């Protein structure tokens, strides 16, 4: 008999916090305070976006200006340039990156030798662990106008003219995509590889008995098994579509003005407006827009994916 449903037995509800719970709460305390100070307090600071912030007056002393910061930002040419660059580059990163990561994971999965897999994986992940500063040095060694590897190749093998890559904005979307793939694919593929390892082996056996070839196995077993993971990762990435990798866009083009038409993104713009120009109000207005659009993007892609494929993040 269930005690809870018996009206004769009254169970005293425990509202008192037990000493065990107190010690668990005490575990949460310091991390939560840190999060409050460094994540939640700055959220309150978004009011700066509506003010003409002056260091000497402080946040509360500065004058309200309403939506002036936003208005000013929208009327500049920068708005279109940085929005376009951010979105286009991120879309390229997301979809080419997804394709490469899944492809690499499937190739790794096809390898029979576990030892070889480990070695390849280690080598392919390594680029993930170097900082963008180092990457910018490497890139510089490739693209150096006089001594760079790429120009040597152009001149010696293809008998073309040298190209000054640091003055050719149109080349940079390609360069950055290649750098992104080089740096991130090894790491991203780990997740897909792990998911592949979790696939029930009997599926493959059954397919082989039914006479399926390699391509059919990939298309009809492997890809469907990865779909939900791919969707979730893509939703997460699209949520961040308004957030550019500041390190990459600041370090690799080396903050060269000539390259701004294709390499200036929201994050570098926010940084420049704040540190170089010193316009706190506008910089934080752009930051606020970025956050809001980010949330809208996550919710939208999530609900679309929920409707279409019943896969969702929340």
């Amino acid at each position, binding site marked *: 008999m269930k005690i809870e449903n018996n009206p004769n037995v009254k169970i005293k509800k425990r509202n008192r916090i037990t000493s065990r719970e107190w010690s668990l709460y005490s575990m949460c305390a310091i991390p939560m305070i*840190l999060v409050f100070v460094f994540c939640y307090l700055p*959220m309150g*600071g978004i009011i700066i976006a509506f003010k003409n912030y002056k260091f000497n007056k402080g946040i509360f002393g500065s004058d309200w200006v309403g939506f002036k910061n936003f208005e000013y930002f929208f009327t500049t040419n920068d708005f279109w340039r940085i929005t376009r660059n951010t979105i286009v580059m991120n879309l390229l990163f997301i979809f080419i990156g997804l394709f490469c990561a899944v492809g690499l994971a499937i190739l790794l999965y096809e*390898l029979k030798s576990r030892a070889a897999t480990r070695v390849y994986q280690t080598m392919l992940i390594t680029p993930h662990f170097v900082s963008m500063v180092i990457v910018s040095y*490497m890139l510089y060694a490739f693209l150096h106008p006089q001594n760079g590897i790429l120009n040597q190749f152009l001149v010696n093998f293809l008998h073309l003219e040298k190209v000054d890559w640091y003055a050719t904005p149109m080349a940079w979307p390609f360069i950055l995509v290649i750098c992104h793939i*080089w740096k991130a694919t090894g790491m991203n593929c780990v997740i897909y590889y792990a998911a592949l390892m979790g696939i029930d082996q009997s599926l493959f056996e059954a397919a082989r008995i039914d006479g399926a070839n390699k391509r059919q196995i990939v298309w009809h077993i492997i890809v469907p098994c990865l779909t939900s993971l791919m969707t979730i990762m893509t939703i997460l990435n699209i949520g961040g579509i308004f957030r550019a990798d500041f390190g990459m866009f600041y370090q690799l083009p080396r903050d060269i003005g000539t390259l701004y038409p294709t390499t200036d993104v929201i994050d570098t713009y926010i940084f420049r407006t704040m540190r170089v120009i010193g316009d706190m109000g506008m910089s934080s207005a752009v930051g606020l827009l970025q956050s809001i659009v980010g949330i809208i993007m996550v919710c939208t892609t999530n609900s679309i994916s929920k409707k279409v494929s019943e896969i969702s993040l929340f």
Partner: protein
Amino acid sequence: MRKKTIIGQTVLNSVFVLLCIAAVAPFVLLVSVSFSNEKDLVFNGYKFWPEHFDISAYKYIFSNPAAIFNAYKVTGIFSILSMFLGVFLMALIAYPLGIGKMRGKSFVSMYLYITMMFSGGLVPSYILITQYLHLDDTIWVYIIPSLISPWYVFMIRTFFQGLPYEIYESSVIDGASEYRIFFQMVIPLSKPVLATVALMTFLSKWNDWNTSLLYINKSELFSLQYLLQKLMREIKLLQDMQGSNVSSLINPRDIPTESVRMAMAVIVAGPALFIFPFFQKYFVKGLTVGSVKG
């Protein structure tokens, strides 16, 4: 059939060898240039293998290494401190979320989750840190603001949830306190995920350059990466760094600038790259546990 598999595997392996070469080539180039003769570099360009082996770039850097050693020291201190403090605090909050019985769990999760979705942005954090907390130009600015990363907290929590629950129950019956269970049972059992988070935290700190860019003006507190980044933009810094006594001895034109740059990059990147293979054992395991289960 058997023969077909062998051919397939050979092709696959050669594809991977090519991919690995592509992944490693930039590192080789960097090292090669750093060991090259400056004249070769200027006249013949960079090569994947030095034409004349030359260590003058390293000699030049180590003739007066104070600035680099100092940056090494600063970066080492804040990386290691962040690693231990960060992993400890993140495991600490992940424990009640993953194992302990506590009311308000979902609130704490939500509290962390919101920060992943929404942030106040760069400017408010900058003003908070410089105008109110006055952490700028101290070593703490590298450590404190980035100790808790919700992403890693959830990763650790997911790992904790996968631990056998009976361990917790039997420890409770035996009268162990929550802290005792945490330190003596959970932490030793969670090495893979903790090592992964430790490695990730350490490397992200080791690779940190934007904190210096934003908050540090004192040159004795520059991080390694920031020093390197400055060097890329202003090669004159190199001469200043080496002090006047060296500049007077060496003709500025004789400084092997190209190879010195790359030698600096090698010196900076080296340690981080050598650490990684030692963590590899735990790494893929720890990383995938957190992510696959979501």
